[in-house]
């Protein structure tokens, strides 16, 4: 078994004086599906940006495939790591094929055109993501879901060994969501790809990930197998909702049911405070 694809030691990051990530320690095993979960503002996106060198860590060390991330050139990194951002739009009317071909940028020489090999990789990436029939459409005319799949195709065209996705399914309907997750699972199995994805939907994370990292206020609150991380007390402590863990009927993975904690007393108090304050 190969070592971890990513190893993070003592990672901290601050925007100016505001700390966003504090002393994170974890590894991402090679191959398989690792998820990052946590409430809004817990530092998930910032963490992903540190891991793909978009933000320099304030402290700590990130090792990618045994090398210090800080010493890897961006172009070389782009051959190893593909990133699918949460949201993306451009006002410039490139065709879908052109945008996916840009995923080959780290492989192309300055004056040379795309080679047969590049075209083959692009076609395969587009067929895998079900975007081949969109090839000649303009990216400015796509729906959110189509655009998301084009972005994944572009990242796959980089032929990475690690794919990072920031909430990849926020714009997709349920069918597209399952298709994307199944696609990722297949790529992991057939190509030995490692997937690291931020999830908003805890049940999706529970269903597809083998490992989860749970963030709270810039710190790791729990990490490990989904069954252990997504326990009722953990979810209540991190997200502030009451949770019952059940089993999802199709394959028995954990499935969470949520309810807001009973707040009647507190909200009554607050109303009283407000009315007394108005007098």
């Amino acid at each position, binding site marked *: 078994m190969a070592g971890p694809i990513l190893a993070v030691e003592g990672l901290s990051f601050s925007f100016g004086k505001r700390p966003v990530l504090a002393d994170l320690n974890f590894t991402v095993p090679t191959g398989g599906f690792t998820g990052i979960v946590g409430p809004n503002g817990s530092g998930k996106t910032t963490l992903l940006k540190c891991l*793909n*060198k*978009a933000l320099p860590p304030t402290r700590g060390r990130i090792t990618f495939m045994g090398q210090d991330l800080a010493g890897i050139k*961006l*172009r*070389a*990194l*782009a*051959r190893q*790591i*593909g*990133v699918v*951002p949460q949201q*993306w*739009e*451009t*006002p*410039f*009317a*490139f*065709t879908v094929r*052109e*945008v996916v071909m*840009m*995923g080959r*940028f*780290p492989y*192309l020489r*300055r*004056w040379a055109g795309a080679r047969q090999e590049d075209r083959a990789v692009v076609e395969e990436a587009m067929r895998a993501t079900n975007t081949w029939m969109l090839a000649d459409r*303009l990216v*400015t*005319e796509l729906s959110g879901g189509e655009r998301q799949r084009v972005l994944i195709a*572009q*990242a796959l065209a*980089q032929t990475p060994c690690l794919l990072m996705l920031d909430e990849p399914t926020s714009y997709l309907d349920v069918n597209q969501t399952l298709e994307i997750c199944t696609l990722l699972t297949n790529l992991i199995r057939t190509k030995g790809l490692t997937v690291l994805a931020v999830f908003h939907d805890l049940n999706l994370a529970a269903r597809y990930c083998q490992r989860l990292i749970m963030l709270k206020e810039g710190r790791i609150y729990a990490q490990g197998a989904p069954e252990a991380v997504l326990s009722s007390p953990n979810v209540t402590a991190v997200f502030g909702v009451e949770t019952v863990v059940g089993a999802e009927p199709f394959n028995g993975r954990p499935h969470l049911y949520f309810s807001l904690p009973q707040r009647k007393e507190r909200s009554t108090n607050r109303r009283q405070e407000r009315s007394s304050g108005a007098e």
Partner: protein
Amino acid sequence: MKTKTKYRLLLAGLIMGVGLTGLAALSLGPVPLSFPLDSFQAKILFDLRLPRILLALMVGAALAVAGVLFQGLFRNPLADPYVLGTSSGAAFGATIAVFSGMNLRFFGLSARPLFAFGGALLATALVYSLGRSGRRPALTMMLLAGIAVGAFFSAMTSLLLFFRQQELAKIMFWMMGGFAYARWAEVRIVLPYLGGAFLYSWSLARQLNLLLLGEEKAHQLGLAVGDFQRRIVMTASVLVAAAVSVSGAIGFVGMVAPHIVRLLIGPDHRSLLPASALAGGLLLLVADTLARILLYPVELPVGVLTSFIGGPFFLYLLSLLQKGRSDWY
């Protein structure tokens, strides 16, 4: 039709347009030509009209390529050397070089383009650092910063005018732009800058395409964005400085030409850059020829003419933006 076919047709059309307009411009003017040419006619043709035509083509090309670079940098089709204040900065630099009375030369290069480059770079750097508040270059900030920086440098040029009123005609020339002083010397000044900067930009076409996807995406695809943007600012400033130092500040060519080309063949810089260069050259040659003959025997400053066309065009683009059209090209 495939984009590649469209691109080839467009290039062929532009080259033909340049040839025909060039021939027309050669034959038009106060001195009628008759064959065989006598020595006076030959002098008019080869020492006045020909360099003027070549200069108009080159300045138009330089401004259009600079426009493409700025539009990529700001991810905004409204960016243009004139609107961003770069031209005013360059004009100010060139004016200083001229009025300090120097025939300074650095490594055999005339001081004028170097001073113009200093002014252009300063203006662009200011607008660029102000105009990108937050993660994305914001349209409003870019336009406002451009107006402020442009006005500042124009005021500085006017101040020089105030102190050196005997040089009025020359200063007005820098501010309005024109080709009345075009000779072979000017052609020789522009050619190396234009040629070098154009080839360099073209070699960066793929990177420019990535930049249109946004800084974050470009970074993820392996582009060192900050470093690349600085190179683009420098290259565009060289182009504007070369253009302005021989012809003054001519507006809107850098916006109109790339816009029309994008409508026809799309945003891919590999074809956008050469086609825009030709289109900008043709546009300015047509404008200059019109400027020569419209109010004959008086010659209009060509900058006034391009602003006549460019101003309304700018408003039209702005109105598209107001309507929230996100698909520009």
